[in-house]
């Protein structure tokens, strides 16, 4: 079938309602959703998990599964209503007119089929072209998505490629038949920041090149700012605000949008002087939505009797033709009013050194191949790690996957023992003591908050029981009654109602589970807490609250917090000092201000540029790292970063390829591992600049 011509909008969704039907009841997933995507336009669909954004995307594809059904409204693609199409008509559109890019590239590629075949299929189904022609086109598209050695890639199986390469293949597959509309469902969530930046860059370029309209689904406002022209904010199944990027980011007219922006750490936010404002309460479950405005119960501007009286329609915001909001009071609210001042707090004074790492190394031996045999390889997960952390200090450890930050955490916790070097906790060597041999005191004073709160709680034990169990292990309290009392106090500490003690983990939301995890970590009065990406699995609106909680407990207990993260925005917001790691090496360490302003280590510079920032005033220097992160099994000679470094040319004599650079002290407390001469470092410009308002 040839592609039909159409002049109007590419996609027009009008009053779309989607429900899922279970045995018990009908669960509305999306209500009264409207949006329009013009040719060449990129529309961002933003919201927290469970708000229905992915459901909208699948509805456009008419792939809602057996339980999902469109119960009202229409989806017009190039003027034709998709909701009324037959299966055959849908098949014609899928893949050729509308293509989709998915969240997990590995899972979306067929593991038992070569990449080439999977790409070639698309034009062969839709245009009936010959295999040679399809192969020629596949080669061309693979070149377009900037993958090296396309011939080899086409012959490879998906598992032979890295995550970033797989995502490029998924993008290539979507572009094979030059679709009119591209749906991207969280396309970079599973990728590292620098890889994400490259993929986003690619998507933007290709969108321009092919003139494709895009529906970009994400929970990351910064990413949407970088990629889209228009944005639609969703909350609990409804679009609450829609408009151009500039309008919504700078002149938001819905309380939820405003609250969302206030809860994410933007440059300028600071944990002491300008703390984040968390959105109170929790996301309503689909079958427990409040009457009237869905955001009502969590809204600062809620007016009883009005906001909860009837369903709220979309209102047009005067001034801009395509800016709409679902708020009854949008013309009464003073939008420029500063946030209700959260109490600024004093910076915690930093105390003595609690934890000192000296030249810590951790190597793993990996045997070659599945069936044994072959030589063993040495994986250098941590190389010469040296730093110290003081009482009451927050030290952030930043780096992408494979940089060794989790290995370091394991060694510190005693889950692994160090290969060489020393870890001193209160001047006591602990690097060679595995956790089962550590004294109760050591174990309870070094604790960890894990990334995924869903997997770290025992599903068959009540919350209170689990905390009491931790207290018992740490030797706190003499009797069960005493421990119970202590457990209730801990619940108070993490701001959970005491009634939660008798609940099962499955009855808790993600944020609440993470609070339990925090309570457990602090049960034995921990001195050092390793927080491994503690908020990255949580929704944006909950992140701020959990971060705040961690800060508050730290302030009270004067805990040393080692905050492992890849999210530089949050690191900048809450840490005192930052350590940047790459391939097992510490490449830069210094106070937050020193690390976030020039001179940078070239890797830090790229990392800063890669992080999307949801602020229209921020100007960023555009640095895209080419290539992949080298494997730790096979690190490059010399400087670990030399394969991707854009400053390499400034170092004479190919020194970078021969020698690992020494740690250079630039300023008191600021060290980088780089061969660049001081003059060159001094020339570096800041990556992030905030334009004057």
């Amino acid at each position, binding site marked *: 079938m040839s592609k039909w011509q159409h002049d109007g909008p590419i996609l027009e969704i009008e009053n779309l309602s989607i429900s899922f039907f279970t045995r018990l009841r009908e669960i509305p997933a999306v209500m009264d959703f409207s949006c329009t995507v013009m040719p060449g336009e990129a529309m961002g669909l933003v919201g927290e998990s469970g708000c229905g954004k992915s459901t909208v995307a699948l509805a456009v594809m008419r792939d809602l599964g057996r339980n999902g059904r469109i119960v009202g409204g229409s989806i017009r693609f190039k003027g034709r209503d998709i909701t009324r199409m037959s299966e055959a008509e849908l*098949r014609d559109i899928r893949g050729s007119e509308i293509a989709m890019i998915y969240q997990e590239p590995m*899972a*979306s590629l067929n593991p*038992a089929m070569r990449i080439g075949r999977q790409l070639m299929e698309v034009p062969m189904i839709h245009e009936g072209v010959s295999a040679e022609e399809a192969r020629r086109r596949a080669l061309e598209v693979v070149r377009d998505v900037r993958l090296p050695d396309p011939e080899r890639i086409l012959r490879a199986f998906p*598992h032979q490629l890295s995550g970033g390469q797989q995502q490029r293949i998924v993008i290539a*597959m979507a572009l094979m038949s030059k679709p009119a509309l591209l749906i991207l469902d969280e396309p970079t969530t599973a990728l590292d920041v620098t890889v994400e930046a490259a993929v986003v860059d690619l998507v933007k370029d290709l969108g321009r090149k092919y003139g494709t309209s895009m529906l970009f689904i994400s929970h990351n406002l910064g990413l949407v700012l970088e990629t889209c022209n228009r944005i639609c904010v969703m909350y609990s199944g409804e679009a609450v605000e829609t408009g151009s990027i500039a309008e919504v980011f700078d002149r938001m007219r819905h309380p939820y949008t405003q609250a969302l922006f206030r809860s994410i750490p933007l440059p300028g936010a600071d944990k002491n002087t300008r703390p984040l404002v968390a959105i109170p309460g929790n996301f309503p479950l689909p079958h427990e939505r409040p009457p009237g405005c869905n955001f009502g119960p969590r809204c600062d501007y809620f007016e009883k009797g009005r906001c909860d009286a009837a369903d709220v329609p979309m209102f047009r915001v005067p001034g801009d033709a395509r800016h709409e909001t679902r708020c009854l009071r949008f013309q009464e609210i003073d939008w420029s009013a500063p946030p209700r001042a959260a109490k600024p707090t004093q910076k915690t004074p930093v105390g003595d050194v609690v934890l000192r790492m000296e030249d810590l190394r951790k190597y793993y031996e990996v045997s070659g191949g599945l069936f044994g045999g072959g030589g063993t390889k040495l994986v250098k997960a941590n190389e010469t790690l040296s730093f110290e952390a003081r009482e009451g200090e927050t030290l952030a450890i930043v780096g992408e996957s494979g940089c060794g930050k989790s290995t370091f955490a394991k060694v510190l916790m005693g889950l692994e023992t160090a290969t060489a070097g020393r870890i001193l906790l209160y001047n006591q060597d602990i690097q060679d003591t595995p956790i089962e041999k550590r004294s109760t005191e050591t174990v309870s004073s070094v604790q960890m908050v894990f990334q995924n709160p869903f997997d770290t709680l025992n599903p068959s034990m009540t919350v209170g029981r689990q905390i009491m169990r931790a207290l018992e292990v740490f030797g706190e309290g003499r009797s069960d009654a005493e421990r119970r009392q202590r457990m209730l106090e801990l619940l108070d500490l993490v701001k959970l109602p005491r009634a939660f003690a008798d609940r099962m983990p499955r009855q808790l939301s993600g944020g609440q589970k993470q609070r339990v995890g925090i309570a457990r970590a602090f049960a034995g009065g921990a001195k050092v807490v390793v927080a491994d990406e503690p908020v990255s699995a949580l929704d944006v609106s909950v992140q701020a609250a959990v971060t705040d909680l961690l800060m508050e407990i730290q302030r009270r207990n004067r805990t040393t917090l080692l905050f492992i993260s890849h999210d530089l925005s949050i690191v900048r917001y809450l840490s005192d000092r930052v350590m940047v790691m790459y391939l097992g090496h510490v490449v830069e360490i210094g106070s937050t201000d020193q690390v976030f302003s020039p001179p940078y280590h070239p890797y830090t510079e790229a990392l800063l540029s890669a992080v999307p920032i949801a602020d229209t005033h921020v100007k960023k220097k555009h640095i895209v790292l080419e290539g992949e992160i080298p494997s730790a099994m096979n690190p490059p000679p010399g400087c670990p970063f030399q394969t991707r470094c854009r400053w390499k040319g400034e170092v004479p004599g190919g020194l970078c390829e021969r020698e690992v650079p020494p740690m250079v002290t630039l300023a008191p407390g600021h060290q980088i591992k780089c061969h660049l001469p001081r003059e060159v470092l001094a020339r570096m410009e800041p990556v992030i600049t905030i334009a004057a308002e």
Partner: protein
Amino acid sequence: MLMFILRRVATMVLTAACLTFIVFFLTNLEPNLEKVAKSEAGSRISDAEVESWLERNGYTRPIFVRYGEWLGILPGWTGTEPDGRPRGRCVDRAADKANAPRYCGLLQGDWGFSTVFKQPVAEIVATRLALTGILMFWVMALMVPASLLIGVLAGMREGSRLDRTLSTFSIATTATPEYVSGVIFIVFLASNAGVQWFKGTATSAMDGVTFENFFLPVLTIALYGIGYIARMTRASMTEVMTAQYIRTARLKGMSFPAVVVKHALRNALIAPFTVIMLQFPWLLNGVVIVETLFNYKGFGWTLVQAAGNNDIELLLACSVVAVFVVLVTQLISDIGYVFLNPRIRVS
């Protein structure tokens, strides 16, 4: 790949040695040997005579030595008759007694002499195995396509009416052992009680296979396996059908049959493939009942005869064959698995 196969073969040989030794040990237990002595030298001999008979025939030496002789890696025992003629393990079996070989065991192709059939064991095993081979071929030819078809059809739309119907069928067939289904078939399809479409005995199939005389034994064995493999295939298929890459394929605009055939099938067959290969050794046992029931004188029937009549040499040979079949099919299954699943790399 070659290294992998070599390594597997080496493990196989070791496993085979262990297993055959266990069988050798069990068949050469004291009471068994006593029975042999009595059946060879007369059933009314005294205990002392039994003792001396065993002594004379080399049965009293250490078990490892005898095992080595049987395998053919140790020279056979020798001795002299009271009248001065030489005798020994190898001498007794050789046609030319003067120039008897020193070694005569499994490895030399000397599998011994069956006391039941009064024939060399190697010959019996060869002919019987060939007959069972024919049976197994037809069973596989029926079972594998039928079960995969049922499994894939049931699994591609989980919970549909087709799925429930086929699942019920597979559970019912797996739940019916051969000695039940075989009897039912004979009664209803090959006797006066029902229709007489088929023959209730497969004896004539040994001379020439026809649909009439062979379908019932084949069906009886196959049916049990069909249910089992179909269930495995269904489980694997339903899992694959919910995978994200199936959605990718669907949203490429492929039709449902194309999605199933091109994307789901190969991935769904990885798990059942191992099960199918496991069916071979199992068939070897399954045929025991069916061959006896249908009076088809194949390998299973021979095994029953050998066991029932304390025919040590034949029994040992049968177990060697069984061990060999199990190990070879497992090797094939491992190699095939690598080809089906590109994620498993053999280094």
